[in-house]
């Protein structure tokens, strides 16, 4: 009886104390767990949305029948696409929005009568907006936004022919092409500029010659991407970002691949059809990497300036040449990775771009520049030497010059 009572009292005390403790813990953790659950749920939905968004791809064609325009949209992506609206901005900067509300399964086509596009030259910008937030440009001579482009654009209208006079079929050879590294930021102070000239092997090495920072490949080395092959008209670039060797925690690096254009005087428009494969890997949550690809047009003077410069280019976001003569820049891919957890993260993909560059006045340009911009930031306080890896492979499918 005595023993039972003792045990009973001890258990009672222990139980009450345990309950008090448990209640206190629950009072603290239940709202946190609930909020954490909500956050994870939102994060999951955002990831799903962004995944769908990245897989969405449309191609478009404009037909003219009896002086009326028809817009044919084809879902060339892997996911169901929701074309929400057609956005048109006229030359006089008046905006017109045409609701489309089209649902397209992968491979499905839809044709919409679009009288607005009958006189396409009346518009300075025409885009298709989708529910996933993608903006596919039909016309955009000044496109700088971070969005995808139409993969195909054509017009059968005889009055508004967009067919260029000729096509360059073979682009890559030692004479006509020239890759250039342009460095900005701390690394420029390391005096590790390479000098480029035609036929020179382009590599960028660190002070100890132990490892390449940047390597160019001709044709492209596609080993970072599964089932991807590229032909002779291609190049690739691999850059490893190091924090060591006093290179700094914030690095911005430009690379330019130049393609010499024949008949480059009095150019009215240039169209480029390129396939871009990108691969970006960053190491920890303290890292923030940005990978961007642009197309630009470079005059001969600009090229001379690039070739002879031995100092860091000006700290100007969109002008990687010293004398700022890069005429027009078209953003075709902007990828930003901010890692969400204490882990490494890799983003990779392959996209096809059809970029149309139109000029209000006939212009003279010498080179089409494919500009690759890699930016790296870290707040890491630990000394990790290799921080990020960028790789990009570009296949030049076709370039046309219109006069």
């Amino acid at each position, binding site marked *: *009886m*005595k023993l039972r*009572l*003792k045990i009973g*009292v*001890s258990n*009672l*005390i222990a139980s*009450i*104390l345990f309950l*008090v403790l448990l209640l*206190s813990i629950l*009072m*603290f*953790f239940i*709202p*946190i767990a*609930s*909020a*954490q659950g*909500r*956050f994870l749920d*939102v*994060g999951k*939905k*955002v990831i799903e*949305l*962004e995944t769908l*968004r990245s897989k969405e791809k449309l191609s478009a064609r404009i037909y003219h029948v009896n002086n009326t325009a028809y817009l044919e949209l084809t879902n060339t992506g892997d996911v169901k696409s929701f074309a*929400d*609206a057609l*956005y048109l*901005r006229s030359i006089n*900067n008046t*905006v017109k*929005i045409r*609701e489309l509300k089209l649902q397209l399964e992968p491979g499905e086509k839809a044709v919409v009568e679009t009288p607005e596009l009958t006189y396409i030259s009346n518009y300075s*910008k025409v*885009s298709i*907006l989708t*529910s*996933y*937030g*993608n*903006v596919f440009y039909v016309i955009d001579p*000044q496109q*700088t*936004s971070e*969005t995808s482009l139409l993969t195909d654009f054509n017009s059968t209208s005889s009055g508004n022919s967009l067919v260029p006079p000729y096509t360059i079929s073979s682009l890559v050879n030692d004479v006509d092409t020239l890759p250039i590294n342009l460095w900005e930021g701390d690394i420029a102070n390391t005096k590790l500029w390479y000098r480029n000239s035609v036929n020179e092997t382009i590599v960028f090495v660190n002070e100890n010659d132990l490892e390449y920072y940047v390597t160019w490949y001709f044709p492209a080395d596609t080993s970072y991407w599964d089932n991807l092959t590229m032909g002779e008209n291609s190049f690739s670039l691999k850059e490893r970002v190091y924090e060591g060797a006093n290179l700094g925690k914030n690095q911005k690096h430009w690379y330019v691949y130049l393609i010499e254009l024949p008949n480059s005087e009095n150019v009215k428009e240039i169209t480029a059809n390129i396939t871009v494969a990108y691969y970006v890997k960053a190491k920890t949550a303290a890292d923030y990497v940005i990978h961007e690809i642009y197309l630009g047009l470079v005059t001969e003077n600009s090229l001379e300036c690039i070739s002879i410069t031995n100092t860091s280019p000006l700290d100007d*976001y*969109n002008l990687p040449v010293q004398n700022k003569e890069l005429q027009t820049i078209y953003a075709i891919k902007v990828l930003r990775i901010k890692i969400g957890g204490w882990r490494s993260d890799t983003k990779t993909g392959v996209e096809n771009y059809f970029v149309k560059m139109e000029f209000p006045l006939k212009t003279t340009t010498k080179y089409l520049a494919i500009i690759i911009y890699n930016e790296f930031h870290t707040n890491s306080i630990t000394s990790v030497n290799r921080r990020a890896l960028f790789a990009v492979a570009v296949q030049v499918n076709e370039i046309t010059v219109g006069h």
Partner: protein
Amino acid sequence: MICNTNLKPNFFTFTKALSNVVAALILISIVLATYIIASHKIHYLTELRAGSIVEAYDIRARRISTLFTVVDIFTNESKTHLLIYNYGLREFKIAKVIVDNSTSNFIIKHAPSGNTVDVVKKGLYDIVVFAVPNSRIIIITDNGDLYEIKVENRS
């Protein structure tokens, strides 16, 4: 004597058992009393701590679920039209627009209908800013998030 001898062990046993119970009750009373007295403070501190963590999660959730694309930007006379497409998981408000380095007046229009609105729901919206930027426009949302749009002067 018989009584005494019989009572002594019983008394001790009872005293011992009673002590345990009393001790237990006293201990429980102390624990409960302490908890009751301190519960307000414990509750306050717990809520404060838990509340700040919950708020931090909610802010992050709101931040990652605010997604929009810049569709177009152009100037018309002394106004700048910034067209954005909200494809995120939540609607949001724009608290402030800064053009270059100055706060500017603005209105938000639902682009398809042209109606002036306060809240950016899913879809296309035209933010009409009564200023022309030279270098950048900064949008600050009701979350306190800041979005910078660099403007290139192409003239």
